[in-house]
């Protein structure tokens, strides 16, 4: 999940989510960065609406309920 957290730091700060940026963040955290994972992240997030996902998380706390329904 570190790769996702890194992407969200950039998103929150209004910065572009690039390979360099993500690698820089994780590297600064002392993590051994897997190049391919970063590449895969960038490619995948290109088609993800992060703002939408964040909104969904606000009501997702109730994820428990569906099972009941």
């Amino acid at each position, binding site marked *: *999940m570190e790769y*996702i*957290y890194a*992407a*969200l730091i950039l998103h929150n700060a209004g910065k572009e989510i690039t*390979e360099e940026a993500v690698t820089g963040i994780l590297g600064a955290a002392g993590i051994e960065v897997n190049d*391919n994972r970063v*590449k*895969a*992240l*960038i*490619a*995948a*997030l*290109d*088609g*993800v*609406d*992060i703002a939408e*996902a*964040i909104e*969904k*998380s*606000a009501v*997702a*706390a109730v994820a428990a309920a569906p099972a009941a329904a």
Partner: protein
Amino acid sequence: MALFTTHLPQWKKDEVEQIKELSKEYKLTGLVDLHGIPASQLQQMRRDLRGNAVLKMSRNTLIEHSFGELGGDIEGVKKYLDGQSALIYTDADPFKLYKKLQDTMTKMVAKAGDIAPEDIVVPKGPTAFPPGPIVGTLQQAGIPAAIEGGKVVIRDTKTVVKAGEEINAKMADVLGKLDIRPIDVGLSLQIAFYEGSFFEPSVLAVDETEYFNNVVLAAQQAFNLSVNAAYPTATTAEAIIGKAVREARNMAVEAAIYEKDVVDLIIGRAQRDALAINSIVE
């Protein structure tokens, strides 16, 4: 291969040189499978790739020869040559390329024997056909066709083939006539050689839904941590206040602290407990 080289016609030598040049020029050298892609579709795909990647068709033997001459790691590309391979070059990384190739998929008409990737539905409405034997052909395929107002119309929307079913010759013919294109066709990546490593398609497919869900999870986790640790941010200040107030109320009711702000809740709790006992007694 020495014998081959000496007798190579000039145009072949040029082709080999060109392939070698492109392979050195671009960051990514790959092979895609063109099998089964109609020429018109291929044209469309090349247009879609413009600016992102370059497609180069060449004879497999010449491709083999080129990588043989280049030697080194890239020679391993030869192993993946198969059937109607074509070269693909790009400066993007393999993940981006794979995604781009997925995005350039188009739809084409079915051939007999194709499997329907999803339900094939013939929509209700008019067709361009003038009255004729086509009506019978459509009806035989199970499509409710009729003549109305001098035109052939489909009277009702009908699912003619279910996902996973095989499309037989008659159906393929009818769907073709109706210009219904149910088959996905795209450039299938066979291999990508990038920055000294080989990337097979299986490692390049990224599940966007999974990433979306992980972003949702990450946001939830961050929210939870911020509130539970009482570290206020613009996003969580309200929630933290809410939690503080709720906890205060809970304690007040549980301990029966008679204060104006919570006495209503205490009465409510008392009544609820009493009703519970009452239901046993009655």
